[in-house]
């Protein structure tokens, strides 16, 4: 199976202007891709060109620019539909990000279907963004949040998951890929199990969309949420995929411009899908930037990217494991190129400060994932999250940097 060659990676790196910057006089090693990914030149240019030549509010006018802008916005929707293999563009809602998408469903679904005493089921490895909106819903509706656990390797306990359903379970939400542990969860099987109980499923795809092929039809998920900025697109744009039948049934999340059909002081009727969920002037420039990013990814091939990243993960895991006293958190068999770790008893913040001065950007802290830290009894970790523009040489620099850290703090 085909991966990306070193020559291709060298070329790809040239597509990302920021990768040639230096920090403290050293070429930057950017291993904080789990937080946000860098942007290829085509995305930066697309945004700039749009503002230069096409900018106008979408769906609002008869004039030339508005027409151009609307066309580009709807093309973006179609590109996203195709990228995740949704059945219809009515199922693609633009939001502010994965967090925005999850909040929208927690609100809309909650308003319609959650009553006092109902249960919402989530996993123990969720990002705060897939915990707090449900907690808020539970508080509003006097419902309860149920958690199913994961094991020491960072794999979800499917047996416990299956056993968690009761007749009061109304919706289940879990992550496709853990942002801290890197685990790829068996979402397809889990969705099938949830559907056996007639419970709809929301998948947080924030860490999955950039690492492999997503097919929402095949997964059969009811909702899928992801952010543009984690898949090489701009900030402030995200996607909520929802099955049309759900999106038709649920009430809108926010009210305002573009989501209405007819407004009087007595009664407002709502616009059709997908506009019903897009109140206010949408981030159409973000949507166009995201479309450009997905086109770029498709031109390289998401499967090739996934294979290259897997080989990088194996290389980095082996290299880091060869350091005496280094412990990796998240050792699932099926994982993406995210490595959370600690070195000896060195505080993650101390290690991160030294790596920074060596030009290496990693994330330190709890990664908006406090319950996972509590499970392992640690205050935080260092997290190296690698993507397809990273190289083995950069992994070597992290390795050398960690040896230096070890020496300084011993």
């Amino acid at each position, binding site marked *: 199976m085909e991966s990306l060659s070193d020559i291709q990676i060298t070329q790809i790196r040239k597509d990302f202007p920021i990768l040639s910057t230096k920090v403290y006089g050293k070429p930057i090693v950017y291993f904080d891709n789990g937080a946000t990914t860098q942007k290829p030149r085509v995305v930066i240019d697309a945004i700039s060109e749009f503002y230069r030549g096409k900018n106008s509010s979408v769906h609002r006018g008869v004039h030339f620019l508005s027409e151009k802008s609307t066309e580009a916005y709807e093309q973006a929707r179609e590109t996203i539909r195709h990228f995740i293999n949704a059945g219809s563009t009515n199922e693609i809602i633009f939001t502010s990000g994965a967090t925005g998408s999850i909040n929208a469903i927690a609100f809309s679904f909650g308003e319609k279907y959650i009553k006092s005493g109902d249960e919402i089921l989530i996993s123990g490895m969720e990002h705060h963004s897939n915990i707090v909106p449900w907690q808020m819903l539970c508080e509003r509706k006097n419902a309860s949040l149920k958690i199913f656990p994961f094991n020491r390797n960072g794999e979800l306990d499917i047996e416990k998951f299956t056993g968690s359903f009761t007749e009061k379970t109304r919706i289940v939400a879990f992550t496709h890929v853990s942002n801290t542990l890197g685990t790829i969860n068996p979402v397809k099987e889990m969705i099938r199990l949830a559907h056996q109980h007639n419970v709809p499923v929301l998948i947080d795809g924030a860490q999955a969309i950039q690492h492999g092929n997503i097919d929402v039809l095949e997964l059969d998920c009811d909702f899928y949420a992801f952010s543009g900025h984690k898949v090489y697109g701009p900030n402030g744009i995200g996607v909520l995929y929802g099955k049309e039948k759900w999106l038709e049934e649920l009430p809108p999340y926010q009210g305002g411009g573009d989501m209405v059909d007819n407004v009087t002081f007595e009664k407002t009727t709502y616009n059709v899908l997908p506009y019903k969920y897009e109140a206010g002037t949408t981030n159409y420039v973000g949507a166009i930037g995201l479309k450009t990013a997905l086109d770029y990814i498709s031109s390289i091939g998401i499967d090739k990217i996934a294979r290259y990243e897997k080989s990088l993960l194996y290389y980095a895991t082996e290299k880091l494991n060869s350091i005496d006293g280094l412990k990796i958190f998240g050792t699932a068999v099926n994982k993406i190129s995210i490595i959370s770790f600690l070195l000896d008893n*060195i*505080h993650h913040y101390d290690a991160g400060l030294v790596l920074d001065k060596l030009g290496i950007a990693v994330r330190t*802290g709890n990664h908006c994932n406090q319950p996972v830290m509590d499970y392992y009894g640690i205050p935080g970790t260092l997290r190296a999250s690698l993507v397809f523009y990273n190289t083995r040489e950069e992994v070597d620099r992290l390795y050398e940097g960690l040896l230096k850290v070890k020496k*300084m703090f011993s």
Partner: protein
Amino acid sequence: MTIKETQDNIINEFEIFNDWLDKYDYLINLGNDLPMIDPKYRTEEYIINGCQSKVWLRADLQDGKIIFTADSDAIITKGIISLLIRVLSNRGPEEVMNSDLYFIDSIGLRENLSPTRANGLLAMTKKMKLYALAYYTMQKKG
């Protein structure tokens, strides 16, 4: 020695380091040497929570002077704490209250006191001055 003189001494000491890692080495040494806060005070009551590292701070008034003791779970943070204690501890409340801490900037550690670092240090300097204000008010009344 005044607060200003102590700060100027620290600035002089840091001038010999031309590499960032040397500065960190020095801070690590200071951090390791810092007498730890009495473990009984390493509690929620004395904690200053940062997202990245935790800081515990206590202030006692002894013979009209404030004695600061502090601790952190991160060593470099502890090293910086040790400098702050050297500058501000064992002084009268009024002096601490009116102090202008410029040495952090001069030795190039400002980023460590930035709100974005969330390591508890910025909140710590604020809290040190609040303790000073509280003791000052107490002395005035007393």
